[in-house]
């Protein structure tokens, strides 16, 4: 039983935030959290209240473990929380989306990139980009894809498969031949695959890689001379991974969701100022937290006290954010946003990203899910 479901106007609005504070994704969790706090500050003008109403924000640790996340979510929902946000793991985000639908609450997922989250149900929104947008960004690097051969070099897991599917849809749809070289997730030796890439003689190699093995993978590509043979593109990860590309850094074209300083907007400046005041640095997933905060404030401000009202307030909403103008597409809740192209340059002992180009939000907008 309990008194879940009723919220009195005037009472604080309860918001549950679930993200990794420990576990393998703790670093993403930290960036998201810092971004969220900056965003909340920005969207509420430093008051932490919306139209005089307190936002009562409760944080939970999902430990990168879906079971823990679901348990915590149920706990929150049971306590009457109607807004849930966060998580960087797609598996967890999908499980939470399921909870949101079953219990009719608002859920805004975190940095989790899976395309499947978009349009999964009416109650689920996202605050970050999705795989499709990454891929489409890369597609813009090679000019007209018609007749070109693209090889996707990825890990054989949901992330890699998703990227391959994305490339097939985006660039394949535009006339490119797309092949995948998928490597078992636990493989540690990439030298032969590097050979295979050269053997395939493509016009572009799209690398979708996450996790610790990326250093060894880049070393292998560089040692076997892949960069001399083919242009290589991949997504630029968070600050901690800048060292992973090693000598290959300067040879890779990076598509990028965000890095500190990429956007040059006023909102970004505000965010960075706030982050630095809090002792944090802007990073890949700072905007995701920031946007989530903006969306929550919007939902509370315009949506009244019903979940349906909040959904309505968010659907089709366009606003200025860190990366520029962002639209929450009404049909499937995709977040239409600009993307970046970047390169790494040597800065003393380490590497730093430099903006090459900003790709227009519409250019990389995913097709409406389910259509």
């Amino acid at each position, binding site marked *: 039983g309990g008194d879940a479901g009723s919220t009195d106007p005037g009472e604080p609005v309860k918001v549950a935030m679930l993200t990794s504070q*420990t*576990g*393998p*994704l*703790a*670093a993403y969790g930290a960036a998201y959290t810092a971004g969220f706090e900056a965003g909340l500050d920005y969207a509420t003008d430093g008051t932490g209240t919306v139209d005089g109403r307190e936002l009562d924000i409760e944080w939970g640790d999902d430990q990168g473990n879906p079971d823990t996340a679901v348990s915590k979510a149920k706990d929150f929902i049971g306590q009457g929380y109607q807004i849930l946000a966060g998580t960087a793991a797609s598996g967890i985000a999908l499980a939470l989306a399921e909870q949101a639908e079953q219990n009719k609450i608002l859920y805004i997922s975190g940095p989790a990139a899976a395309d499947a989250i978009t349009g999964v149900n009416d109650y689920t929104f996202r605050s970050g980009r999705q795989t499709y947008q990454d891929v489409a960004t890369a597609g813009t690097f090679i000019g007209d894809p018609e007749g070109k051969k693209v090889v996707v070099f990825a890990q*054989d897991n949901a992330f890699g498969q998703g990227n391959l599917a994305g490339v097939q849809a985006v660039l394949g749809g535009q006339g490119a031949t797309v092949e995948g070289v*998928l*490597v*078992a997730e*636990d*493989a*540690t*030796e990439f*030298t*032969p*695959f590097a*050979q*295979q890439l050269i053997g395939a003689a493509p016009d572009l190699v799209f690398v979708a890689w996450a996790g*610790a*093995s990326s*250093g*060894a993978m880049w*070393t*292998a590509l560089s*040692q*076997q*001379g892949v960069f001399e043979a083919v242009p290589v593109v991949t997504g630029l990860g968070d600050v*901690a*991974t800048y*060292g*992973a590309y*090693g*000598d290959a850094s300067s040879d890779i074209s990076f598509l990028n969701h965000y890095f500190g300083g990429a956007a040059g907007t006023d909102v970004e400046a505000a965010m960075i100022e706030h982050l630095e005041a809090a002792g944090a640095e802007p990073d890949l997933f700072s905007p995701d937290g920031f946007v989530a905060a903006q969306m929550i404030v919007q939902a509370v401000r315009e949506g009244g006290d019903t979940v349906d009202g909040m959904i309505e307030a968010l659907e089709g909403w366009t606003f200025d954010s860190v990366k520029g103008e962002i639209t929450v597409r009404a049909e499937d809740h995709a977040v239409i946003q600009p993307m970046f192209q970047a390169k790494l340059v040597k800065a003393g002992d380490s590497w730093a990203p430099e903006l090459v180009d900003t790709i227009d939000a519409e250019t990389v907008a995913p097709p409406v899910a389910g259509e």
Partner: protein
Amino acid sequence: MSTLLLLVITGLGLGALYFLVASGLSLIYGLMGVLNFAHGSFLTISAFLGWEVGRRVSDGTWWGLAISALVGIAVGAIVAALTEYLLIRRLYERHIEQALVTVGLSLATVALFEGIWGTDPIYTEKPDWLGQTTEILGAKIPNDRFLLIACALLVLGGIVLFLRRTRYGLIIRAGVENRSMVTALGIDVRRSFTLVFAIGGAAAGLGGVLASVYYGYVSAHLGSTLLIFAFIVTVIGGLGSLTGAAIASVLVAVLQQFANFYLGGTGDLVVVVALAAVLLVRPRGLMGKVA
């Protein structure tokens, strides 16, 4: 052709890495009957401390690497000896409990490493030569594989000599079977046990430093990823047989390479299937002694 050669030689390199981890595991299991789940942690802590010291002395040079290796070996030996002294010794002849204690230790230490060094991998520098390749029959072989193979051979030879030339092997094999009878022959069996742990730990320590060269990073999970393969090769090779572990390391790694490349990335699957198949046909592994 050059792909085949590449697969075989990189397989050998990977096998060498497996063996460096498995050698200590096999020594400890074969002689003492302790299934040491904390072996991965010995490796990880050695890699971290080796890196911390090495990069301060001279980052990315041979000199720095040598320092790292020495520190890694020392740390591995000390941590392992302490583990034996503080935990394993109290549970002698209770092999299940010994294994359990090491499970607890690995849980706790991995968490601790995460707390200290964070969850992200920390990328490391290595001497330039190790990052380059040497061409053999048209295949560009990364040089660090040669280093791995050389070290694995050294460790294999060293441990075999230790077992052949000293009484320790004998003492420990007897001690595992009947500890009190060994003491009743006037032998201090505890010292031998600690020594074996230390040697196993030292091998893991060296393995840790070399693993960080191979992967190009150190992380709290460095050991756990390697440990499972080390277990597999130890078991396939035959528990307690060092040469068996060496042969199995190579077989498993090469098999894994080929399956990953030609059979759609099924390396892991093939390896576990091979494990089950070998054990069902030869329950004691390839070179296991008759129990």
